[in-house]
């Protein structure tokens, strides 16, 4: 068990390329997941069939591991000729697109719950005051409820974001060479299990702790009115 700096240095270009893939997978997932989560979180507020559907959506995508979803989309969907023989094939034959869709669905399930919690935490009196002042429902949502909810859910979002960073390791199962997969390929030809995996672990550690620092700074900035005496 020892760390070989020379091997680490030599394999760094490969690992950095893997890091780039990890981010290429991650960033669209975050945007897509957030866009999907917002209407679902809003649908949970009014009782009725839409709320039940949204609850089922959240339950399904939170209950199923992201790896299962990735397999389901990447190798499961092409079973249907509808996918294979129409324009959809151009979309679903691309591993990146499958990774984006699969992880975004998981992410949206968790984000919908987080956003719902944040929106529910906005004091009722504030909303009543806004309505009394004649703000339109759309204005209340975008200028009041969402900005306030964003401040409340900052910590929960940090946890979810860190989980997503680590979930991207699953995309190696559908042929993408992300950071984990890149470390494995280096292991395959150097036969040194420690150096590439530990270097990759160090890169992951820097990413996650960078995110933690960024969120601490954001928390200090946005929640500065909550300073504890």
């Amino acid at each position, binding site marked *: 068990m020892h760390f070989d700096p020379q091997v680490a240095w030599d394999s760094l270009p490969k690992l950095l390329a893997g890091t780039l893939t990890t981010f290429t997978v991650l960033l669209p997932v975050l945007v897509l997941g957030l866009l999907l989560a917002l209407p679902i979180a809003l649908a949970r507020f009014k009782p009725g069939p839409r709320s039940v559907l949204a609850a089922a959506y959240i339950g399904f995508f939170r209950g199923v591991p992201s790896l299962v979803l990735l397999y389901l989309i990447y*190798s*499961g969907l092409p079973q249907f000729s509808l996918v294979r023989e129409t324009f959809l094939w151009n979309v679903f034959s691309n591993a990146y697109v499958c990774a984006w869709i699969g992880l975004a669905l998981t992410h949206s399930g968790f984000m919908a719950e987080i956003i719902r919690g944040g929106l529910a935490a906005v004091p009722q009196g504030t909303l009543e005051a806004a309505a009394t002042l004649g703000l339109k429902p759309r204005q209340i949502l975008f200028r009041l409820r969402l900005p306030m909810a964003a401040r409340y859910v900052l910590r929960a979002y940090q946890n979810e974001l860190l989980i997503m960073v680590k*979930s991207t390791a*699953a995309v190696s199962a559908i042929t993408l060479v992300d950071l984990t997969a890149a470390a494995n390929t280096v292991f395959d030809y150097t036969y040194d*299990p420690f150096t590439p995996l530990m270097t990759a672990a160090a890169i992951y550690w820097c990413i996650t*702790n960078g995110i933690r620092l960024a969120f601490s700074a954001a928390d200090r900035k946005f929640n500065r009115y909550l300073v504890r005496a």
Partner: protein
Amino acid sequence: MPSMGFVQQLGIGALTTIQVAVCAYLLAMAIGIVFALATLRRRWLTQLIWVPYASIFTGVPSLLVAFLFYYGGSEIVSSVLAPFGVSQSIEITPFMAAVAALGMVYGAYLADLIRSAIQNVPHGQFEAARVLLVPRTTIWLRVILPQMLRLALPGMTNMWIVVLKDTALVSLIGLKEIMAYAKLASGVTKEPFIYYMLASAFFLAMTWLTYYVARNVEQWAGRGFHPVVAKGASHAL
């Protein structure tokens, strides 16, 4: 339609998944309890071990840790045993690597959870028990444990589901569990969608079962806080 033979194999795989998840969760609980009790008071010696441990294992994907343990596990074990004069090399199976990786990663999360549950038990409870000269073991087992359980259970339930779902991911190191069999079946039958749907149905069923059991357990753990009024005795209130 799925063939019964493959469904049976999927069932065997599901059992392995549950085995791995249960073993990993027990290991995580053991690690979590030890670290929670050790770091209850801030001492620099325990902080010296705990802070890097938590930082590393919560900052790195569990899949990567599993790969590290699987490929390098036997070397790690023999280098740990070497100072004790034991020069035996053991073979690391995917099962062992998966359990060790998930246990160590989620042990770090559980330690935080358990520690904050203990710290949120009102301090007067400790003091009152000590003043009454209750023995130390009795304080922990009969006074603190029942009260911290109520606080820790929701988080522990969530963590169990996360461990179960992560078992699917860690199967990539070559573990013969439900995902491996689903992959095998879909390769042979060319009907991947059905088998992956069956796998997701298994995970959904497990999640549902977990929440069903957890609701009852949480009700039991919180029995001192939300008294259940027995039928016919409601006039007592």
